[in-house]
């Protein structure tokens, strides 16, 4: 479970996150929806321990990240904003590196790696160096390395951004599979259809604040629009204007 209470973060003059409060429950998919620059990535970065909030609480399974970063980081699997890979390492070596950093022992690491390789359909590329991988193949490596330690909470920053249909489908399947295993999934996106399709709970953010949250139906009702996209635009513009 991920809990965020009255979270605030500013960079100089810019208030990136203003008083954000939400909870992402176990076994549910929570979507952070908002236009570019709404504060989605900043919120996620605070949750995965790369930024520290100015005020408010951010807890992973009850652990405040600010006070015990390492313990909180053990409980999360993250697909961050940057999808950089080491071009001279193979896909398998990437997964192993992160698995080892999580302290997984050798035998379990081997089993988990093979499981993930199967799950993500990457048998044919597993032992190739990642240089020259397609966008989709790179994304699979990133996903695999973020899930290697079987985390109870998964955070995904724009997981389907720039992917082809096939890979997008794989990512969706993974998200649903995680949900079934009672894992907390929190992901950010600016794609309405993506969010409406996958999420049990939607949080719409704009300019650092939450403008609406709840189920798809609830958000449509709040904006008095039938279409989620129209609802989204209406809610976001309500803040900006």
């Amino acid at each position, binding site marked *: 479970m991920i809990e965020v209470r009255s979270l605030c973060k500013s960079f100089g003059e810019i208030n990136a996150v203003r008083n954000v409060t939400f909870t992402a429950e176990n076994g549910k998919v929570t979507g952070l929806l908002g236009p570019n620059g709404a504060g989605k990535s900043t919120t996620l*970065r605070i949750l*995965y*321990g*790369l*930024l*520290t909030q100015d005020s408010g609480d951010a807890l992973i399974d009850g652990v405040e990240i600010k006070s015990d*970063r*390492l*313990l909180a*980081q*053990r409980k*999360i699997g*993250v697909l*961050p*904003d*940057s*999808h*950089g*890979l*080491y*071009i*001279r*390492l193979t896909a398998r*070596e990437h997964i192993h*590196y*992160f698995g*080892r*950093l*999580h*302290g997984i022992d050798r035998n379990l690491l081997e089993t988990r790696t093979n499981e993930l390789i199967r799950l993500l359909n990457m048998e044919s590329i597993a032992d190739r*160096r990642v240089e020259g991988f397609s966008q989709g193949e790179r994304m699979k490596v*990133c996903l695999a*390395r*973020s899930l290697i330690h079987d985390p109870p909470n998964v955070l995904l920053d724009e997981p389907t951004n720039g992917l082809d249909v096939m890979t997008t489908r794989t990512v969706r399947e993974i998200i649903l599979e995680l949900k079934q295993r009672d894992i907390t999934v929190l992901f950010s996106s600016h794609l309405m259809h993506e969010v409406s399709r996958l999420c049990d709970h939607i949080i719409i953010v704009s300019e650092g604040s939450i403008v609406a949250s709840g189920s798809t139906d609830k958000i449509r009702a709040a904006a008095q629009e039938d279409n989620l996209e129209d609802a989204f635009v209406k809610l976001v513009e309500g803040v900006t204007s």
Partner: protein
Amino acid sequence: MHPIAIVLDKEFRDARRDKRSVMSAFLFPVFAPVMVYFMLTAIIELRVNAQKITIPVQGGEHAPGLIQWLEEKDVSIVDFTGDARAVVKAKDRDVIIIIPENYQQRLAELRSIEIEVVSDGSRTDSQPTVGRVHELLREYNREMASLRLIARGVSPEVMQVIVGRVTDVASKQQRTAAALNFIPLYIILSAFVAGMGIAVDSTAGERERKTLEPLLINPIERYHIVMGKWIASSLFSALGMVMTLVLCVAAMLQVPLDQIGLQFNVTAWQIVLMIVATLPLAFLATSMQMLLGIFAKSFKDAQSYIGFLTLLPVIPSLYMMFNPMATREWMFAIPMLGQHLLLVDVLGGKDVPLIGYVYSAVSCLVLGMGLVLLTARFFQKESIISN
């Protein structure tokens, strides 16, 4: 496995596969000794050849005694007839000796004989030959004068009021070490060259390729990451340094130094001492490069700063070359200067007090560790992931 070991293992594996960076890291350690070998061999050959000269002589038939004496001194004599000045001016000959017709007559009269040495003072390449000719003529003059005195029952010593006697306190080995003082410089330089690729790639490169953010999400201490990268880079640097050292020594053993009166011997123990003396420098060199790598925006950016950094080790060595001063114990504590002094002393076969090794190792490691902790502090900052 400890997190430091995990990062170390990954960085080492990654760097080893980077063919271009491995090439540039180990080009210097291989190329420098080869260059040293060919350069020194060429210099020695020049010097040796300067002794074996050919002198064109005009009127040699007037002084058969001098000609014979010269030939005994490894000089080949060729007869010359014509306009000596014009020929030398036209650079066809380096030097020409003209012996006057009245040589025998003046010799018999015990009067000075003028021997003309025609040379071109504006040419630097003929200087050694011309110098050698003058030296030979002076020597012949001394010998003949002594014989004349002895014939008259006078000791030749009356001609020598004072005699300078050379007492060189340096051993042959030490003189060799002083003449070869570029070897310590090369070894110190190689520490900076060999570790640079991996030190920069694992800091600036990691940021540039956007792999830093995913890495930092892992539940490990930031300074463990930095330590792992540091040790990996330092191993590369140390490897390059040991290679340079061993290959330089191997090259020196092949150079015919004995032909110019120098002598180069090295024992396995001396090589071990030199490695011990310089290894701490590997850790310092890479710590500097990593700190710069963290400041830099990209790999390219970092390389341009680090170019200047590589000049740093040259400073103490050059300073010592132009301002030689007696070694004091505190000097060992100055990074790079300490290593330079240790290497010169070990190569010269001098016994270096243990404190010299301790000072130089401790100063390098403490400074290196300090820079690494500073780098780790930058890793803690939020701005590390943004630009």
